[in-house]
């Protein structure tokens, strides 16, 4: 396999992610529209679904905020292009910005300059996992600014435990109100440490809609929180209604006896992601979307 083939595959994944909302998210939006009782909320959900359809038909970004480029990479230690992979991801991001196009979103936080190609210090952001074998699994996860701006961390006292966690989630959703473009998906990371719980929270946003945690006790809390959030009345775009969140996903790590860290990640309804497996022989299989 040539580097240019891999580059083209990554550009294709970025295009799929920003223009073609995953089916599970779209179905979830349709299911919530069926249950929604408020007229303004129905109007918003209908606009969202119409927009999703148009974006897919015309291969246009669903939302003008095409996010900052985030990759999740599971790469086999025998993958032939391992040593050049980082450079390929950066170059793919540049190409995708021009070809799709993506909005140039990366800004130097000190100089306030935008290089115009979605790269720069630590961008794209790459989450690396080195695994056995020769395959590469790649997920692109362009994350918008509106939902990112309301993400939170709480270092709770262990005495407050799960009840404190639930209050933190409810209060954060209410404080965020309309800003993260509800209906949102909530990722809750519990334990580990300050950075670890936020990392888990964000990563769990990638889980398919409606899929519950394998631990039944945690699965029950996910459902309890989802139902509670949808009783707040915030509604789509904060204009009132029954549909404030599409799902809640929790992931846990063991905690220090003195700590109870909770990270909360928000994802707007435009939950854009795309994944592929690329074998060591160069076969490319897109796993997130049905591709003609």
């Amino acid at each position, binding site marked *: 396999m040539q580097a240019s083939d891999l580059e083209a595959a990554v550009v294709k994944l970025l295009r799929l992610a920003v223009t073609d909302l995953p089916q599970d998210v779209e179905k979830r939006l349709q299911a919530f529209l069926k249950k929604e009782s408020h007229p303004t909320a129905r109007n918003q959900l209908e606009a969202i679904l119409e927009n999703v359809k148009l974006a897919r038909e015309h291969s246009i*970004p669903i939302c003008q905020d095409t996010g900052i480029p985030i990759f999740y990479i599971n790469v086999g230690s025998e993958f032939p292009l391992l040593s050049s992979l980082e450079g390929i991801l950066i170059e793919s991001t540049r190409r995708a910005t021009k070809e799709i196009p993506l909005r140039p979103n990366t800004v130097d936080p000190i100089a306030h300059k935008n290089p115009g190609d979605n790269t720069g210090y630590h961008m794209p952001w790459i989450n690396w996992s080195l695994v056995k074998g020769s395959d590469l699994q790649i997920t692109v996860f362009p994350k918008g600014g509106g939902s990112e701006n309301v993400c939170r961390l709480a270092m709770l006292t262990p005495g407050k435990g799960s009840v404190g966690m639930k209050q933190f989630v409810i209060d954060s959703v209410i404080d965020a109100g309309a800003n993260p473009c509800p209906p949102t998906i909530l990722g809750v990371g519990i334990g580990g440490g300050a950075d670890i719980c936020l990392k888990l929270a964000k990563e769990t946003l990638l889980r398919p809609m409606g899929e519950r945690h394998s631990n039944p006790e945690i699965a029950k809390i996910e459902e309890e929180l989802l139902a509670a959030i949808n009783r*707040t009345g915030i509604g789509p775009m904060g204009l009132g209604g029954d549909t404030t969140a599409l799902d809640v996903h929790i992931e846990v790590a063991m905690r220090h006896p003195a700590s109870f860290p909770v990270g909360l990640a928000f994802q707007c309804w435009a939950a854009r992601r795309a994944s592929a497996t690329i074998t060591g022989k160069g076969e490319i299989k897109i796993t997130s979307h049905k591709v003609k």
Partner: protein
Amino acid sequence: MATYELKTPVSEQDIRKLRVNDIIYVTGTIFTARDEAHQRALKLKAGGKPFPINSNGLAVFHCGPIVRKVGDQWEIVAAGPTTSTRMDMFEDKFIEAFNVRVVIGKGGMGKRTADAMKKYGAVYAAFTGGAAVLAAKTVRKVVGVEWFDLGMPEALWIMEVERFGPLIVAIDSTGASLFDQVKTKVEQNRQKIYADLGIS
């Protein structure tokens, strides 16, 4: 919940008719402005320098669009609203200085802006966040761009639109706010949710 068609420049009289929850469609000239454009505009005003466009009666859109050049003409690819609360610190002065009648965005704005809307005759209209293709489809033509040095998202894009909407009037010229009404209900619900979850 009435539906209105507005043509720019919009008169104060037409704005004063609108009430929270009404649906409006805007036809005519609108321009985008985000944080940095608001800031620069107010600086120019304070320095007695002119704003590059005649904004009287127009709609300002909180939006950082994706734009591409086809031949020598700019084309809007995607143009949904951005979070309006970031512009709250500028908007009252902006309305006063530039006489815009409709502020389009998402997420709502605060009391300072609502007070200015009451005083000068303007409304805040919410467009569905993320619905960037729906918005772009109403753009007939990009008339021009100013302050491109701020970068594509922050530049001032001036465009002609046809039936831009549906927009929900979320703050009207009496100062009433749909977002405040929702917040009051949410506060009442919070206590019930606490009880359900065993939060004391």
